[in-house]
Each structure stands twice: as structure tokens, then as C-alpha cells.
């Protein structure tokens, strides 16, 4: 039996019990259809999947690195059947299996709980899995015939479908073998949701979706193969209208919203837009003058012009350099790192300022040679020294591929093998180093020779090969790193441009089209693949123009939607039906507080007035509790997740009463002091405060409340009213303090 193509089982129409019966019946009847009951069993095709499904071969159990669990070792997720067969059948003099009495086999008695087992009961005695292993033992524990069919492909049915909120979808996993047979392996496949809040899946492949609209994916794994089911969960609301399309971004975002029935919020107002885009592009609040001019302008293109102005400004370069230098591990481990860290940060910043094409930017880093002073990207090789670290960072940062797993075994979620890993590492094996006069630094050059890296498992010397692609032979004189970058920047490269546009999309929308942004794989599909493809195409056609990528994103109406949810889209977290608010990142927040309080933060070695977003490395975190508590990264990882964006009690306490905040509020040359001394109406001063802090004018209620507060005369420690100058100063400090503690200030919205 095959399941109906449109296998949507709504729980309001079918009870779960009935569903299970149907599913089990479908599985059994299919299996019976393709395999004779007494056919010889194969360790690879029959036994290994049972062990994997039962969880025996996960990293925490018998696939633990080293020696497995209690002496019994299996490969991770059963990816190495030959090794597992040896361990199971022959290791320890074959004590785990009893051909004379299969039920007395140690492996079955432990797995079924008849003997104490740390992992608990994994296979009940009446389970199909137990029966398979028992029968295999009975058959003499064959590894399998030499000509037994091999797994050639794997699929899940359906591959995608629309599932109504609170609905269900039964998945079917099908394994295709070299002899043309197809087996339903739903019962032995592994199912995993990429967003359990939206769609959960049980061990038998039954997907249950929640009432959160959007796109969810279920990864289905079988014997090293991966297939994905993508569920579209429509909200089903009527989308009467969407904002007009300004570019292809809007086309795809709004088409998706229409498909899912999620009405977008309206466009944000001008004040919100200017604050948002200034924070997102320049890492700073707009100045009062900019805000006034922008709000007063009637130019229909003023939003586009503001974007252009920000892209031209050094603020853009400073802000994005802060993003990149942390990812490129510009880390101060020793006082002598000062020069190289300043040089590398400055190089990144200057590259962004001059809008160096992204492929060239990456080329200059990966294929860097010479000295740090002469060629600052050489500093990357100071931090990332070994070929395996180099390819892991390159893969994750520039290709969005996490290769770390494949160093020791086949990647569990991906198609990458150890050969892929070491072939990639081979690109970096001819990086030569010469001593330099500078402590901790080497001169980097291409060391002539044929690049090879050794697969630690097979011992094979592997030539450079790119992920899923063939690289022509590289002559000993040619720097393999240049060939790697040639491959990366090829228009046909499936990772390079995609990884960047996804990373930048996340920068502006708080959530990547693929999430996490550096985990791009078949089993982690984009929530809007058409949009991702269009962004990638646009980026390639622009010649890897980073500013153009920022421009096309921020010009879109999708970016300019209000952050205020409507009742219909309040639960949406991934379809960009509104702007998702985000706390200002540590440096931006510190700069913003300095700006509105009229103070400044002093950073060692740097000119007075240097903004926190322009700091060259992590060393300043040590001297700034503020930057630490608000999660400024230390440059330890290529993952943007190192930057802590969540809120915490420590942050709240810091903003409320930390000494540095108090000092900024009470700065003798600060805004509160200045406002207190100025002879002009309190209303004007409050308006200025709102412009500086929230980039908008106060409402009449806000104005009234603030003015009334400013008119109060507090009492001193002696219970007597304080003098008017002090009262005014303290009132302004209090007002500022309240404003910087508001969510409107702390968040980009």
C-alpha cells in the first residue's frame, strides 16, 4: 500500500489512535510487499538501521568517541557498518551474540532490559527491531552477501506540503536500493524537527504542527542519507493588501505572506525608519539634526537618500567592521598583539569603507601572504593556525557549512565525509611560515609543493577538493588557497553568495532565511527559498557588492514594516510580517547612552570620542563591564552566536544603577547639566531630549508628564527642598535615566 499523495490528517477529522493504526498498517503491508519473510538479512541494510533507530549509536551511548560505552563501540549513527559488525560480532570473543540461543544474546538481553543496561530498554521483546536482530543471529549473523543491494538514495514523502494549524502529517521514508527495490523504512528512519514549537515529529514520522504559521522542516535520516519534509503552516487569514513592492525582496516576502495568509503590519513612520536604519547600517542613533531634517523633508525619496547617506558614511564601515573582526577572531591574547589587531581591524574597516567586492575581501584574507604590517589579513593566520581550524572557520564563516563533525566521522546531518573534510584541509597544507621579528607572528607564504592532507582514518593522502565539486589539479607552484577562493567566488558556487546574503539578511531582519545563519544544509531549508535564491542572484550580479546588498534589503518595504504586531501576525517569528525588535548590541548601546547623556567613554590607546563600535578588538571588554554584561564577543568563535543578544537581569541592574551609567548621567559637561543651565522653556528641552533619545517628538501626554516632573523640587537628605539649580540638574538626570531604561530606547524597533 502507498499512502495517498495528499496525506493531511487533521486531528479534528481523525483521532490519533486511528492514525497510528493506519500508519502501522501501511508500513507493514509495504514491507511485506517488497521482502520475503525468510530472506537472508544483511547487517548493513537490516540490523544497523535497527540499532541506529534504537539510539544505540548516538554520541552519548555506544558511539561515544574513544571506546564507546562499557567496551561496546559503534560508529556514530551507524555510518561505518563494517566497523560496527566487527565490534558486535567478533570483538571480545563474540560474547555479545549467541547463535545457539539468540534470545540469550547479551545484546538482546541488555537492549530489552532483561539484564541491567545503562541506556534502559531500547528494544522491547515484542518489537519488530528485536525480531530482526534475533532472526539475524539465528541466520548466523551474516554481514551480507557480496552482491547485496546497496542504498543509493533516500526520500521522504511528501517532500513538502501545506499543513493547517494544529494539523498532522504522516511521513513515509523510502530507501532506494541498487537492485531497484524500494523499502519503506519509516520505522527505522530518524525524524527531527528544526522548530519543535512549530512542528513536532514522533519516532514514527507523524508530524504535528502547532498554530504558529510559517515554514517548518523535518529532517529524516537513514543510513547516512538525509531527506527533508517542508511544512507550510498557513495562518489562513485574509491578506487584503500588502505594501507596494519596491523591489524583488518585497515580491517574495509578501508572496510568502499571502501564501501563508499572514497579513503584514503597516509601514513604519519616518521617525522609526530613520532610527532603525541608522542603527542597522551605521550602528548609531540619528543625530537630532538628522532627525529634524528628515522629519521635515517632503522628498518622496528621503528614505532611500538616508540609506545612501549612511552607506557613504564611515559609520557603516565601523559598524560592519565590528561584526567581521569578531568573526575573524581579531583577539588580543598578548600585549604584543596590539599592532596586528589594530592593523587587521583597520583593514577590514577600510575594505568596507571602499566597498571592496566581497569575493576580493575574502580572497585577501584566505590567500594572505607577507607581514601583518604590509598585508594586515595575514593576522588571520596568527589566530587560526592549523589547516583543520582554517577550513572549519572558512566553511562555517564563508560557506555556511559546519564541517567540524566530518573531521572524525561522516557528518551526521550532511553529505560530507572525512574525505571531504581532509580534501578541503588540503588547500591550506602549503601555507609556509617564516620567522618574523614580531613576537607571535610569522611571515606567511605559499610553500611550493603538491598539497595533500591525510585522512586520519584511512591514511589516504588527499588532494584539494572543494565541497561537492572537483578542482583541477593544482601545480606545485600554484597557491591552492587561490584555487579555493576561485571556486568559492564562482557564480556557480552553491554556498558562498548564499551564506553572505543569509548572514546580511539576518543582520537586518534578526532572523536568517536559514537559521542558524551559518548552518546551511539540505536538511535545514530556508523559510523562503525563492527569496534566498533571488538575493543570491542579485548579489552575484552586483559583483559581490556588499553595500548594494544592504541597499536592496533596507530599501524594501518588507524592511520598513512597523514592529507593532497586528492581532493576525503576532505569533509570526519567521516570515517577516513585521519588523522583529532587537536589543541594541553592546557597543551600539554604549555609544547611544554616551550620545544621549552627552558623555563619552575613554578607551585605552584610542582617541577621545572613539565610538565603541569602532573598537579594534576584544581587549576593551576587560576594562568595560558594560560591554561584557551586554555580550560583546571575545572573538573566540566564527559564530555570530558568540555575541549575546538576549536580555538579562545583570543588564537591567547595570542600566539602573551601575557606576558608569550614573557617572554619564551626572557628567559635568553632559546633557543633563547643560539642559539644567539653559534658559529656555522646559517644553523645548523635553522635545530635544525625545529627539536625541527616541528620534521622535514627544506626544502631548509625554510632554506634559515630563514638564511636570521637571518642575518638581526634590528634597535633600535634610528633608529641605534642594536649590533650584540642583533640582533642575537632578530632574534632568532622572528623566534621562528613565528614558534610557525604556524599551523604546534599548531596542531597535
Amino acid at each position, binding site marked *: 500500500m502507498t499512502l495517498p499523495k495528499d496525506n493531511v490528517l487533521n486531528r479534528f477529522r481523525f483521532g490519533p489512535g486511528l492514525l497510528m493504526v493506519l500508519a502501522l498498517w501501511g508500513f507493514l503491508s509495504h514491507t511485506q510487499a517488497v521482502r520475503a519473510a525468510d530472506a537472508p538479512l544483511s547487517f548493513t541494510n537490516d540490523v544497523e538501521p535497527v540499532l541506529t533507530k534504537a539510539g544505540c549509536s548516538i554520541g552519548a551511548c555506544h558511539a561515544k568517541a574513544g571506546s564507546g560505552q562499557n567496551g561496546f563501540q559503534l560508529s556514530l549513527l551507524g555510518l561505518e557498518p563494517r566497523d560496527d559488525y566487527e565490534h558486535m560480532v567478533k570483538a571480545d570473543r563474540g560474547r555479545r551474540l549467541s547463535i545457539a540461543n539468540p534470545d540469550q544474546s547479551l545484546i538482546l538481553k541488555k537492549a530489552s532490559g532483561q539484564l541491567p543496561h545503562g541506556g534502559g530498554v531500547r528494544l522491547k521483546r515484542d518489537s519488530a527491531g528485536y525480531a530482526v536482530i534475533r532472526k539475524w543471529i539465528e541466520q548466523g549473523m551474516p554481514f551480507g552477501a557480496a552482491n547485496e543491494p546497496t542504498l543509493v538514495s533516500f526520500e521522504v514523502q511528501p517532500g513538502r506540503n501545506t499543513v493547517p494549524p494544529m494539523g498532522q502529517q504522516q511521513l513515509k521514508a523510502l530507501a532506494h536500493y541498487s537492485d531497484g527495490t524500494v523499502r519503506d523504512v519509516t520505522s527505522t528512519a530518524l525524524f527531527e524537527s528544526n522548530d519543535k514549537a512549530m512542528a513536532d515529529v514522533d519516532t514514527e514520522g507523524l508530524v504535528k504542527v502547532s498554530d504558529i504559521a510559517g515554514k517548518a522542516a523535518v529532517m529524516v535520516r537513514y543510513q547516512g542519507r538525509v531527506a527533508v519534509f517542508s511544512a507550510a503552516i498557513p495562518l489562513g487569514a485574509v491578506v487584503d493588501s500588502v505594501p507596494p513592492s519596491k523591489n524583488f525582496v518585497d515580491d517574495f516576502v509578501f508572496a510568502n505572506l499571502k501564501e501563508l495568509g499572514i497579513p503584514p503590519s503597516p509601514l513604519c513612520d519616518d521617525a522609526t525608519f530613520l532610527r532603525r536604519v541608522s542603527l542597522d547600517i551605521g550602528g548609531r542613533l540619528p543625530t537630532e539634526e538628522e532627525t529634524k531634517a528628515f522629519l521635515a523633508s517632503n522628498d518622496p525619496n528621503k528614505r532611500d537618500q538616508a540609506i545612501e547617506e549612511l552607506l557613504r558614511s564611515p559609520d557603516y564601515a565601523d559598524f560592519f567592521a565590528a561584526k567581521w573582526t569578531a568573526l575573524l577572531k581579531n583577539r588580543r591574547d598578548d600585549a604584543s598583539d596590539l599592532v596586528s589587531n589594530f592593523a587587521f581591524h583597520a*583593514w577590514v574597516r577600510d575594505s568596507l569603507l571602499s566597498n571592496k567586492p566581497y569575493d576580493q575581501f575574502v580572497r585577501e584574507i584566505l590567500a594572505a601572504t607577507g607581514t601583518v604590517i604590509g598585508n594586515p589579513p595575514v593576522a588571520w593566520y596568527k589566530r587560526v593556525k592549523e589547516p583543520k581550524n582554517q577550513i572549519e572557520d572558512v566553511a562555517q564563516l564563508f560557506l555556511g557549512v559546519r564541517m567540524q563533525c566530518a573531521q572524525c566521522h561522516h557528518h551526521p546531518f550532511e553529505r560530507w565525509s572525512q574525505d571531504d573534510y581532509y580534501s578541503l584541509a588540503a588547500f591550506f597544507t602549503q601555507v609556509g611560515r617564516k620567522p618574523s621579528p614580531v613576537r607571535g607572528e610569522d*611571515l606567511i607564504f605559499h610553500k611550493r609543493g603538491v598539497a595533500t592532507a591525510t585522512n586520519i582514518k584511512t591514511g589516504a593522502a588527499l588532494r584539494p577538493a572543494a565541497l561537492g565539486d572537483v578542482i583541477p589539479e593544482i601545480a606545485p607552484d600554484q597557491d591552492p588557497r587561490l584555487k579555493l577562493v576561485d571556486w568559492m567566488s564562482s557564480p556557480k558556487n552553491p554556498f558562498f553568495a548564499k551564506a553572505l546574503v543569509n548572514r546580511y539578511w539576518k543582520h537586518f531582519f534578526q532572523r536568517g532565511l536559514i537559521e542558524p545563519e551559518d548552518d546551511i544544509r539540505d536538511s535545514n531549508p530556508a523559510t523562503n527559498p525563492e527569496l534566498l535564491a533571488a538575493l543570491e542572484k542579485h548579489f552575484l550580479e552586483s559583483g559581490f557588492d556588499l553595500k548594494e546588498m544592504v541597499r536592496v534589503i533596507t530599501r524594501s518595504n518588507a524592511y520598513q514594516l512597523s514592529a507593532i504586531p497586528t492581532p493576525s501576525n503576532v505569533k509570526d517569528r519567521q516570515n517577516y510580517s513585521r519588523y522583529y525588535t532587537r536589543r541594541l548590541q553592546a557597543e551600539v548601546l554604549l555609544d547611544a547612552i554616551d550620545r544621549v547623556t552627552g558623555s563619552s567613554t575613554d578607551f585605552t590607546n584610542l582617541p577621545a570620542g572613539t565610538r565603541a563600535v569602532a573598537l579594534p578588538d576584544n581587549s576593551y571588554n576587560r576594562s568595560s563591564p558594560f560591554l561584557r554584561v551586554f555580550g560583546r564577543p571575545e572573538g573566540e568563535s566564527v559564530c555570530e552566536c558568540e555575541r549575546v543578544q538576549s536580555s538579562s537581569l545583570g543588564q537591567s541592574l547595570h542600566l539602573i544603577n551601575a557606576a558608569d551609567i550614573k557617572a554619564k548621567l551626572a557628567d559635568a559637561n553632559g546633557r543633563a547639566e547643560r539642559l539644567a543651565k539653559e534658559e529656555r522653556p522646559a517644553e523645548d528641552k523635553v522635545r530635544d531630549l525625545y529627539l536625541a533619545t527616541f528620534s521622535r517628538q514627544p506626544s502631548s501626554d509625554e510632554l506634559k508628564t515630563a514638564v511636570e516632573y521637571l518642575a518638581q523640587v526634590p528634597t535633600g537628605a535634610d528633608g529641605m527642598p534642594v536649590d533650584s539649580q540642583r533640582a533642575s540638574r537632578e530632574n534632568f538626570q532622572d528623566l534621562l535615566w528613565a528614558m534610557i531604561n525604556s524599551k523604546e530606547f534599548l531596542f531597535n524597533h
Partner: protein
Amino acid sequence: MRVTVMRGLLIAAALGAGLLGSQRVSLAQSVGLPAPRLLTTMPMGGTAGTQVEITITGEHLDGANELTFSDARLTATRKLDPAGAPVPNQYLVTIPADCPPGLYEAHVRTRLGMSASRIFSVGTLPEVMQKAGNTSLANAMPLAMNTLCNSVATARSSDFYTFEARQGQRVFVDCASRGIDSKMEAVLVIADAAGRDLVVERSSGVIDYRVPADGNYVIKVHELTYQGGAAFYYRLSLRELTADAVAVRHPSTRRVSAFSWPPVGLPEQAALGEVEPNNDKDHVQKITLPCDISGAFAQAADVDVFEFDAKMGEIWWVEVASERLGRPTDPSIIVQQVTGTGADEKLTDVAELTDIPSPVKVSSNGYAYDGPPYDAGSPDVIGKVEIKQDGRYRLQITDLFGGTRSDPRNVYRMVIRKAVPDFAVVAWAQHMELRNGDRNAVSKPIALRGGATMALDVVTVRRDGFDGPIEITMEGLPEGVTAHGLKIDAGKTRGQMLISARQDAPGSFANVTFTGRAVIDGTPVTRQCWLASHAWPIPDSWGEIPAPRLLADVPVSVSGVDLAPITIAPASPEIREVTAAEKITIPLVQTLRSEFQGASTDLRPIGCGFESAPKLTVSLTSDKSEAVFDLAALKLPPGDYLVAFQGSAVAKYRHHPEAVAAAEVAKRQAEQMVMALDAESKKLAEVAATATPEAQAETEKSKTEIAEKQKAAAAALAAADEKLKQATAIAQPQDIVDIVTTEPIALRVKPAESK
């Protein structure tokens, strides 16, 4: 400079012996006796045909009274105040109109001798001085087109300059810093009128800018890590160039590696130029050998491929200069034999030529120096290609540092020649190698104390198979100074030059001729020996990278006042004769002029052939010792030899003791003046007591005058007292460790008598 050593003996004890008889030093001990160093001149240069007033600063410049240059056309006189007295540290430099633009060494003569030098630039542009406080846009200094500004970087700040320009104008902004001995890694920014950065340049110090629109522009200048102060000086020029003009940059000093370039007799210009495209086997440039080609690593990952025919048995020497021309490159050459054609073409490696190795092990950047802090090697190439078969050969040259860089300024010169055996020599003052993490790299002028012997390391890069011995000579020495070269032996790369001043040598100075001499193929050959020095005294090379360079001259001077703490010399200056199988004992005399830590010190032998001789233990409390050489053990062939001993000792050095005596005299004079005035005042009081009323007015006037004189005399006495205290404090004995080198011992080894 005094370097305070604060590192423990435990660590020191764990480390191995250094080349100079490693010395364990105690806490709070300084390294290196005081040496005069000219550190800054402000301005740092001037325009040919003008007179420039400059102010100097430096270390141990006591008694400085004369500023001299490496070119006699440049002259200086002391600046005088209105009363005609010299103003301390200020000079008027006259730059004649015929003085060619370029870099010159400036040094100042002090009580310790001629100072280490500082670069003085001569240019053609009108020069101005930096406006004070130009560290903000509001206080930016206007800079006229075609002007040069002498400036000092401001710590934790940028210096701001403004200029006006027209659309399409080509503006060339050039900042000289590292190339003129400054510590500054210059960052140049051209910004718009609002100060927003438009173009930033952080490595080359130059921006060739095409002005996009009429208006005001801003130049910002700062140090890469925002350091500033007197040592971070720069010369910023703003020039307008025509569109097709070749931009000529400020001249720069030469790296130490450049001493081995060019080969003597090489024409100024190469005979051939590379012709692009010549980047692969389908685009090779045919050449015939020998040849002399200039080219450039102009494009990223540029490969220049040349092809030539050669015959079996030929040996070709290939030399490439690029890094030695001042470029940040690392040339590399592959020579392959080509057989077959088209698809059947086969390449067989014949030679791979890379760096010119340093002749001696260079110090690592580890815990302490384990070699000299000078690298005489180069990433350039000198190597040979031996042709084993008649045929076609392909030579490709690449820049190992040029994979991602496109810069037509990265030129090279490649010479392929039949062997022309030759050599180049360079020397530098030796450094202490202490076993306590000492990493100071300092400029050491050849400014000798009376009785001192100073040793220079002399190293050679040999060309085209030359393997013979190289004698080292120094001529034109000042009075009372002798120099003895410990030759670079056949096949070796290192020798020494010992320069000794008599104890009674007068204060004197001369620019000397320093050479290496050898006989090559029967012909005597003399080559200039370059002197290298560090631009700055660096206390710790972990925190600051030393910047050694070649000097334009070799100034040798004698203090005439200060004496070496110790002199060790053979008791008799005659050549001692000894047969090859004998032992010989050489009596030595120590002249001690200071107290020392410890009772003795060990010195190791230097001089070729004596490396394995036993160390010499020298008493630091008595005036005699003996050196013993066992010629049988040394197995030296008959001939004349020079040998010396070298090590270190910790002297209790008194700095500028004569200043104490002078201050004492001054104080006595001031005291006498006070006493005289007191007596006069007393006398006047007596006169006043008996003066007539008519004379009272006159008496009162005299009393007032005396009182004022007494007040001034008291102040003068207080000042003299303070000066004496300071001089006394400075002259307190201080533990300073320094290199001790004996005067050379001359030996004539005669053949052993046959039995």
C-alpha cells in the same frame, strides 16, 4: 639609555650560554654603558638653498656643541641668544642650493664622542612647521599645495590638515616616517570637508588622489596604534601632479639586507624589461643568457615566465633584487627543463631558488636574544643553476608575498650571469646576550671611551661561489685610535672588527673608510663595508619592533674625557712567535678604572682558528692575567693570527663625574659671592650708622642695591647647590653590565720543528 633588568636569576640559570659569554645579572642592573644618541631634530629637514633652525633631543648629549652631517656640504652652527651665548640644543643648518635632495646622517658631538645619527632630509618643496593643536577638524591646519610640513603625531589623536582642490586635480599626499627613522606607522586619510573618511591608506604612507569635486578636503594623519610624541615624527607633503607624471616618493633609508645589492659594476638600468603577457607556458618571454632584466609583480599572483637555451655543463648564477630595493616582496624562482612540445611537453625541475640566508643566525623573537638583532639575509635570491643537458629551460619568477596584491611598484631586477665571484660586507655593533630575557636592541655609535676596545660583528654575503678569506680594515681613524680586523675565514661568514682607543686619546672624530678585502682569482678586491644600526634604542623588542638600517657613513670618535671601566691588553704589543706544536702563555695587563661586581669574569676567544681555545678567566681585582694557547690542540697552520677575548663585566660606573667637580667649583664661587656681599652689606650698615643725614639717602640706595645683589647671589647659590646635588646623584656608581673585549693579541705560528 639604561635598561633596568627585573628578571629572576632562576630563569636565567635555566638558559644556555650566549655568544658573548652570557652574563647573569642582578636585579636593578642596567645594560650597556651610556652612549650618546641623537634622537630627534625638529624640523627633520629643509629645503635646498635655505637655512633651517633646528632643535635637537637625544640621550647623553652632555656637552653637545657641534652638529655634523654625513655630507660636508651641510653645515651647522650653534644658535646664539641675543647676548651671543649659544642656545642649548639649537642649531642653524645651512643647506646649500647644490645639495642634492635626499637623506643625510646628522650627528652631534658630545662629551662621550659623536652621537648615533638621525636622518636629516633635504628636499625641494617649501617647508612649514605643524601648527600646534591641529587635532580636530575645527583646528585643522591649512596646507598649501606643493608644501611640506614637518610634524609630530599626537598620541591618541589624529592631526588634521585642510587643502583646497579642484575637480580632476591629481593630488599626491606623501608621508615620510619609517623611512626617515621615525617610529611612526603612518595612517593617511583623505576626508571630505566634514571630516568623513573618503580614502584611507595604512601601509604605504602615500595617497595618489584624483579629486572628485571642487572643494575643501581634509588630510588626517595618525599613527597606526595612535601612538604619538617626539619619536613619532613625520614629513607630510602635498603635491599637485600632472595626470601622466611619475610620482616620486620621499626617499627612505635602506634596509640592512640592501648591503648586498647591487653587485659591483651593475649598470643603473637593466638592459631588458619583462614583456607581458609572460604568465604561462603559452606566453613565455624568450631570453638569451647572460641577461639583466627588470620587471614587476604588478598583478596579484603574477608569474613571469622566461625561456632560454643552455648547454650541458654551463653554470648560471641568478640574482634577484626586489626586497633589497625596498619592496615588501619575497621573490622565488623555479627553473625547469622543457622537453617535448604541445601536449607532450614535460617539465623537469632543475633548481628552486629562494631566500638569501642570513650569514649568521638572527635572534629569534623569543625570551632573550639568541643571535644578533640584525638580519643580513634577504627574501631575494642568489643561487646557481647547473645545466646537466643541452636543451630548453624555463625560468619562472613569482612573489611569494604577492598572491592577492596588485601593485606595480613591486619591481624586481633579475641578473643571470656566469660566475662573477664577489662578496659584500656589513657590520654592526655587538649586543649583549643576557640569560635573563633581555631583548633591548640599541643603536651603538662608535664613540670610544679612553682605553676602550669596541667590537663590531662583520658578516658577508658571498656571490657566485667565492669562498676565500676576507680581511677587514678600517682607515682614516682619528688620533689615538687603532683598528684590527679579525678576518672572515675561508668558507666562513663572520669576522670582527676591534676598534681601540688609547687611554690618553684626545677627543677626536673622523669618518673612516671601512672595507672588506680579498683576493679573487688572483686579483685584490676591496669592497665597502656598510655599517648597520638600530634607529632607536628599544628596551624590549617584544613591545616594540626594532628597526635596523644601513648608515650612510662610519663615524668613529673618542670621548677624550670618559674612560673605559677596564682595559685588557697584552703586556707587550709585539707579535709573539710560537711553533705549531707548542703552548704559549701571553701575559695580559688589566687597567681597572672602576669597581666591578664579582672577582673575575670569563672571556671567550674570538678570531678565526681560536674558536675552540679555552676561555680566559680575568681577575677584576688585580692587574695581571695570562692567556694560554695550546697550538697543538688548535692545529693552526703556520701564519699570522689575531686573537682577542670577549665577555662581559658589571662595572660600578660613574656617569659624568667631572660635572660634580665643576658643580663644586661653581658652588664655591657662589658661596664666595654670598660671603662677599654679606661682608659688603655689613660694612654698609656700619657706614649708615655713622652717616650724616645728607648721606643717608645715598646710603639707603646702596643698601637696597646690595640687598638685591644678596638676593640674586642666594638664588645662584641655591641653584648651584641643586646642580651639585643633581650631578652628584647622576655620578653615583651604578651597576652596568657591558661587553668587555681585550685588545688583540698578535701571534705568528711557525711550522713545528721536524724531529
